[in-house]
């Protein structure tokens, strides 16, 4: 979809800016969200947030300047700050901001039936609590949130794109004695979340992980849940696919183009047009029309992710991978719906150590990929059933090496943030018992 909602001050800003610089870009977002939080089983707090913000980029003779603010009335000051910022930036090759283009048809990520009302958030909490009744564990906290945002991208080449997104997010925490359980769900549509199951899974993990057994230090076959896998993949492997990291020599994947970076059965791609996950978009954060980008095909590294700035600097093409961290965030290299795919199979027939979550995955070495983390909600699993919980253990390894040892992928995938992942089985991984 492409249409233009008149925002006069943005047009005026662009006109004013181009008197002094070659190009001007404005990204503006406004939205509203509500959330309700549980303390134990009662609603303790309800929040309404009214958000607005914008980011300006100016480009002049290859120098890129930027500024942002939450106050549209302050745009002149903000524009002046962006122009001052450009004067300090090192000039680089620059071939222009995008021009208006025919955009691809993409599935929406806007639920027009979603009401951003506190009562809706309270009802979602009630349904999570209903699900939590399934197992004997105490609910300690929980949250339900609903949001709607409209974003506008405009530049001095005539691009005027607007898009709308909705979001719903749920989470619940539970405890039984000294055993904790946590579950969450998120989607762009209310029909796509299941609050009852979120509640049920939270108390299930709290109840089922209690009275865990110790494990001897040794090498074991592991089954990492999508959540545990996301913790390792998202902090190490995905950032190493950024063209900026590669050209700055901060990526261990930099020398592997055309070479094996994972088992033959593994593929990884960004799918901005994939129906379902919330990252669907026809244009990236700079206005480049989006398309599928295959990073890893059958285990072989195919390409890296680029935004315009990095692409122009290193003689590459943008992969439409620019994203922003919020309405007033500046563009950086990221992804929309990052999918790990490949040959699917049953992965829980033979005896494996199932790991639902990890504690401390963000402390992994982002460059080398080495990590050593604590397991959370780990179980021995056989014939598709949890047999006994494991009390406490550490898992050490390397995120890059781990991808060469993937022995299987589950039939189902789960969306974790912007990652769409299966459970993965990896054999003979090092576990340190207590």
């Amino acid at each position: 979809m492409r249409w233009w909602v008149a925002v006069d001050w943005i047009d005026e800003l662009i006109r004013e800016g181009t008197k002094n610089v070659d190009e001007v870009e404005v990204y503006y977002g406004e939205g509203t969200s509500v959330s309700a939080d549980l303390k134990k089983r009662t609603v303790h707090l309800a929040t309404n947030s009214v958000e607005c913000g914008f980011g300006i980029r100016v480009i002049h003779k290859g120098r890129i300047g930027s500024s942002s603010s939450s106050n549209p009335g302050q745009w002149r000051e903000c524009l002046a700050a962006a122009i001052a910022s450009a004067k300090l930036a090192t000039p680089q090759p620059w071939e222009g901001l995008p021009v208006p283009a025919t955009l691809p048809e993409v599935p929406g990520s806007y639920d027009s039936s979603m009401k951003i009302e506190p009562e809706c958030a309270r009802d979602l909490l009630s349904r999570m609590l209903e699900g939590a009744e399934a197992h004997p564990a105490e609910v300690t906290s929980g949250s339900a949130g609903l949001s709607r945002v409209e974003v506008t991208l405009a530049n001095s080449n005539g691009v005027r794109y607007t898009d709308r997104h909705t979001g719903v997010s749920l989470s619940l925490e539970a405890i039984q004695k000294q055993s904790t359980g946590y579950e969450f769900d998120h989607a762009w549509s209310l029909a796509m979340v299941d609050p009852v199951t979120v509640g049920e899974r939270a108390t299930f993990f709290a109840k089922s992980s209690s009275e865990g057994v110790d494990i001897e230090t040794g090498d074991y076959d592991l089954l990492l849940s999508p959540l545990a896998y996301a913790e390792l993949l998202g902090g190490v492997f995905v950032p190493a696919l950024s063209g900026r990291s590669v050209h700055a020599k901060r990526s261990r994947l930099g020398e592997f183009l055309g070479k094996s970076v994972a088992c033959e059965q593994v593929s990884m791609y960004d799918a901005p047009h994939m129906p379902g996950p919330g990252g669907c978009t026809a244009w990236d954060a700079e206005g480049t029309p989006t398309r599928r980008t295959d990073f890893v095909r059958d285990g072989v590294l195919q390409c890296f992710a680029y935004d315009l700035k990095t692409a122009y600097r290193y003689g590459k093409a943008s992969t439409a991978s620019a994203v922003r961290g919020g309405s007033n965030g500046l563009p950086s290299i990221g992804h929309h719906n990052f999918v790990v795919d490949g040959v699917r199979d049953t992965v829980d027939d033979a005896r494996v150590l199932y790991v639902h979550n990890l504690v401390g995955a963000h402390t992994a070495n982002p460059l080398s990929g080495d990590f050593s983390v604590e397991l959370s909600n780990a179980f021995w699993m056989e014939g598709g059933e949890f047999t006994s919980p494991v009390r406490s253990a550490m898992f050490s390894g390397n995120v890059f090496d781990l991808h060469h040892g993937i022995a299987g992928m589950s039939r189902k995938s789960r969306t974790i943030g912007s990652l769409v992942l299966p459970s993965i089985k990896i054999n003979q991984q090092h576990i340190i018992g207590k």
Partner: protein
Amino acid sequence: MSCISYYDLRHVTGETTHIDIDNSVVESAGSSFVNVAVLRVLSGHGWGVLQIDNYTPCTGRKFEELLEQACRLANITEEKVILGDVPHGILPVPPVKEDPYEVPLEEKSALLAAIEKGARSPGIVNTRANYIERVEHVNFSDSSGNEYTYRMTRSGFNVLAVASRNGDLQMGYEREHSIHGFNLRHQEDIGKNAAETAIALLDAGAPKGGKLRAVLDPELAGVFAHEAVGHASEGDLIHEGSSVLKGRTGEKIGNEILSIVDDPGLCEFGFDPVDAEGVAVTRTEIIRKGVIHAFLHNRESLAAVGNGIAGHARAMPGEPPLVRMSNTFIEAGDATEEEIFAECKNGIFLKGSRGGQVDPGRGIFQFNAEYGYLIENGECTRMVRDVSLSGEILTTLHGIVLCGNRRVMSPGYCGKGGQSVPVSDGAPHVLLNDAVVGGSGLD
């Protein structure tokens, strides 16, 4: 409005300046503007909270409309919130030696470039330096007539050096952040330190995991206090039942030499002149001589739980306050560093921090050192990398058997509930028996 029993408003305006220099290229440098407010209302039951971007201070009918909106939110809450009686007041913000806001951006950029240049040396393939400066004007007022206004400036830099050899990448990382004023001058050697660490790590081995005696340097021991004790002592977690420390006031969980404190009034990076609910800040001894002594509270958790001190509510601009740590530290003891290494005899010395995480309900924590050395016969020998440490809160603290005589604080940021706030952690060198060390080394 008669239905309102309490409200408070925290309005933050300010300016953020950043500079990013990557491999000698000024990638970005400039300023952005902040104007956000949070209005909290207690009306009959729980909290109704309005978060407002681009807030214009108002009075009369317009302010009453905001209160009404917040009341409508509070209508869906069920929990009866009671606020504890607390002392109010504000500390003076420490004066700065040189106000970063007054230093021209061009000069900041040139000084940062010199630090980044200092990190360039043979074997280093990437150098990157970032500067961040946040100037915040905070206005707080509540329905009891308390009003506070202050200006805080935090600034500092990070420098990263990446070394590469045969496909192996290692990094050295240094950071300096302060509330005491502009700190970019005369810092060129810090870049060099980052480079030396990165190159040395190329030859470091992976440690063998298992139970070891460990000496923690002040930075890592500070993170240990933060992760293993600080979070679990937060009153909101105690209240909702998700901390193993609940109901354990007076219980001995460590040796007599161990005292752990949180002090938002200490003039370190986590300093707050007044907390985010307008409460006077004060030192709280979480663990005194090995015994659980006091929890960290906001007004609500103080009333609900007791056994602690309020003044620990903190908030990112525009976000509702949460119970948080500020400056958290292990008190110094009387051991010298030499005595600590001699007593360890054989084990591992862990330095620096790559952060950590805790599950306070389960009582399990994990954190990671930047690097370490094996200790053999009381001497540091082979360098090791990617060493982590995990443990159980209720048993691990007994393993701290010696505390050094010199405490050092390190700045950082702490995340909770989607909010990141500035903190500092610190400690002297400590000796930890039976540390569970993670590593993938085989010998």
